[in-house]
């Protein structure tokens, strides 16, 4: 399973096209494709954000950041820039 997108060029291109959890609307669902930040991905994986899992954007804080998502049947809160590292399958 490829977890990280290795090539930098590819990464930049992918980031432009690919949707991340950050871009979800409230109530919208997506399926995790990959995690872009190697170090942070370790934490996210432990919390159950595994590629192939479904995520749903549950709520946003009044100031727009942080957000809560539902993954693995529980609610997880994270910041927008952390959410941006969770890319979704098209």
């Amino acid at each position: 399973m490829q977890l990280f997108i290795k090539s930098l060029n590819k990464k930049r291109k992918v980031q432009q096209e690919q949707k991340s959890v950050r871009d979800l609307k409230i109530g919208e669902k997506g399926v995790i494709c990959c995690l872009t930040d190697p170090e942070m991905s370790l934490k996210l994986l432990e919390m159950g954000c595994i590629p192939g899992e479904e995520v749903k954007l549950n709520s946003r804080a009044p100031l727009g950041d942080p957000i809560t998502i539902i993954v693995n049947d529980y609610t997880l809160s994270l910041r927008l820039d952390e959410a941006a590292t969770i890319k979704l399958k098209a």
Partner: protein
Amino acid sequence: MSEVLAPAPASVPYSISGSTPRKAAKIALIGNPNSGKSSLFNHLTGLNQKVGNFPGVTVDKKTGVSQLTPNLKAQVIDLPGTYSLYPKSLDEKVIIDLLHDKKSSSYPDVLIITADASNLKRNLLLFTQLADLKIPAVLALNMMDVAEKHGIKIDVAELQQALGVPVIPVNARTGSGLAALKILLSQELEVSETTFFPIPENLLVMVRQIRYYFELSNDYLAWHYAHQYHKLSFLSEDDKAYIGELVKKYDFHSNAQQASETVDRYTRINGLLLDAMRVTKAENNEQFSNKLDQILTHKIFGYLIFFGVLFMMFQAIFAWAAYPMDLIDQGVATINAWVHTQADGPLIDLLTDGVLAGLGGVLIFIPQIALLFAFIAVLEETGYMARVTFLMDKIMRKFGLNGKSVVPLISGVACAVPAIMATRTIDSWKDRMITIFVTPLMSCSARLPIYTVMIALVVPETYFLGFLSLQGLVLMGLYLIGFLAAIFSAALLKWVLKTKERSYFIMEFPTYKMPRWKNVGLTIVEKVKAFVFQAGKVILAISVILWVLSSYGPGNAMQQAEERATSELTSLHLNDADAEAHIAGQKLEASYAGQFGKFIEPAIRPLGYDWKVGIALLTSFAAREVFVGTISTIYSVGDSENISTVKEKLMAEKDEFGQPFFTPARAFSLLIFYVFAMQCMSTVAVVYRETKGWKWPILQMLYMTGLAYASAFVVFRLFS
């Protein structure tokens, strides 16, 4: 020991081989945050708890004794909550330092692994890692009732089969299942035969080399050495270098291996849960919590409610705590007076004015600490604290603070001591240090007496528009300056403080729950005990030193001063109270504290102060409000309780040119000094206790005193 053990009850479908009773064992409790670990710890140990230190980190080491059977006790240690064996914070590091070092004095014989049944998949990740370490373990399956409500059915027998260790359903709320757990723990437990994560073939050679070099009992432990050797504090530099070379030689990439291990483990867990768990209702069932969140994290109501909660908390430590604090104050004074009626002499003075007064200075904080932690425990227990962080994170992050920093900062307006203890709820080390560092800059209630006296002295009692008091505005300005200093210092520290640890916000958003009052009660007891026994001794020591400094002088200087003052009395025509104050003032001048005041006079002269203020600066280190008392003694004010008397005396004070000493320039310089200066030994003591060392309190004192000195200097120059 020849006890007869009850047979395992029917609810424990696990047969124990060779049920020989063991000697008092060491049990470690480990589990995810919010998995009911602390409640279970409280149930197992009750009030038999002790808070100690893990070396080198700020996390408390909670240990306790549990009576497993009528004649078998076990030592239980509560480890910090964690999601995995790969620590992401400094606090979690104590877990691997303990579990990866068999020679550690606290190395457990048995693990109780707690898991939240309503969130089993994620909780089992840590379980499978621990199982692979091959330490005898029990899985305490908590919150089965919540799981059932969510439509999750767990087949305990099936799960036990799959995991290879006993699984005991417990309810940490009611304590049910605890008897079964205790009986199980009183017997010899075996390690799980199941290996959940096989070491990758290509790395097995490296892992085996580490394993045999360190004589480790299994491959997975050696695997962890390869991952975390640089973090393990019990390894020598040579050991680390040895592993470092192997890791390089075998091209071992810790991050990539860790990631694929986690994915493999989840795949394995998903597989075994297919048989052991049935989910009947597919949709998320946190409807109640979601509905409540629509109000509690609402754009307007969310903040209104939060500020309401803060206001209540503030009221509690500012106003409600005042009653028991007065009682303690009077109680100590009564005992003091009583001792003086029984005996006299320098030793008695040391006991009463030194030790007893110091003890009073420790006990006086108990009401505030108890009340603040009652609030905080309820906020944590109900899950509301996570919402506080959620609401405030974006604003606070700009200043290098955490969403949770709001609670300590606001509490700091009442008193920095409980406020700094409240930073314990902040997970990130850096955020916590910054919060501890800047909290004493918030103007606390002990500064109020100084503010009141100084403002009354130099700010006229005029009103704008008939109701806006100028004095009130200046007072508000001082609070504002303190607040601004706190947040800008935080922003500064955010840049200065370097840390390897990355700060994440990624955390479970817990559902709302009713608070468990037992936990609230035990939290209060624990915090009060920690303060009294750990910060208390520092406070006591400093207050005795301060007492000696102000009651003794070199040679017989004190005696001479007293005689001189007494002989002057006849010509001064003073009333009794003022006469007594006159003698006390003369004695204080002759004491070591007086010497100190004169000694530092050159240093504080640029700020406009003389040696008399110097004495007050020293003595008010015991507590800022002592400033007013000392000033009253030096200027021989008989009735120091009455602000207008103090004010009159101070106004009459003349400098060497016969002009009033307390000019606006001097008063404002003093005010600014007290806004910034770390003039509080209790705060120093509590920072020492919370950071487990002297580095932070000393840095903090240098910073705050430096800031105070520079600002007071500027203010004095500007106004004079």
